[in-house]
């Protein structure tokens, strides 16, 4: 079945430094979708980025990710971390075999400090 592996645990950064959260995945479907969700405490997880196109950079709210099917990766990046970026980040995968319901990675807690 599908699986998603992402940078686990806690990532701590100083404000202004670049963000890089790793995500790799396994699926038999070539037309799978990859997502990054952001989850703030006591709020709904919301969709930050999505992509199904190989080697195309996707951007939203200063974050970007490029789906690389050759390496099964969808790493999340931002050039300069902000305090408000502190949250849980989940990489997720969906495919037609599972009716496109997301399979989530274990989540990465990003803490940005001054």
């Amino acid at each position, binding site marked *: 079945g599908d699986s998603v592996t992402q940078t686990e645990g806690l990532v701590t950064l100083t404000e202004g430094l670049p963000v890089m959260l790793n995500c790799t995945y396994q699926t038999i479907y070539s037309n799978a979708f990859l997502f990054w969700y952001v989850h703030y405490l006591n709020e*709904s997880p919301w969709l930050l980025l999505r992509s199904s196109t190989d080697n195309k950079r996707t951007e939203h709210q200063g974050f970007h990710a490029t789906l690389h099917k050759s390496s099964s990766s969808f790493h999340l990046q931002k050039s300069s971390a902000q305090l408000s970026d502190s949250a849980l980040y989940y990489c997720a995968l969906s495919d037609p075999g599972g*009716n496109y*319901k997301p399979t*989530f990675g*274990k989540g990465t807690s990003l803490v940005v400090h001054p």
Partner: protein
Amino acid sequence: GALVYQYPRRTICKSGTSMRMECQAVGFQATSVAWYRQSPQKTFELIALSTVNSAIKYEQNFTQEKFPISHPNLSFSSMTVLNAYLEDRGLYLCGARHSANSDYTFGSGTRLLVI
């Protein structure tokens, strides 16, 4: 825009009792509803997928007898945790979408504490 209201936000139940959580879709028709559980230190694990006019599909390790789900119309779904025990604690999340061309929109989760 599409929103999913999930309630209650948190609940405490005694071991062996049951609790029900609900999700309401606003601004779109929830053709499919997915229920997840996040146990402590773990990721979101799919419990079941409910699609209107189709049978509810439960994932391995989850059963209808333990987690009965109702999806009576295109705006509402509920799930009950029957005979809750310590291992059932965690954050339960519902996600809904309209069609194969739309992404899932998630509720804010129901945090279950079993005492």
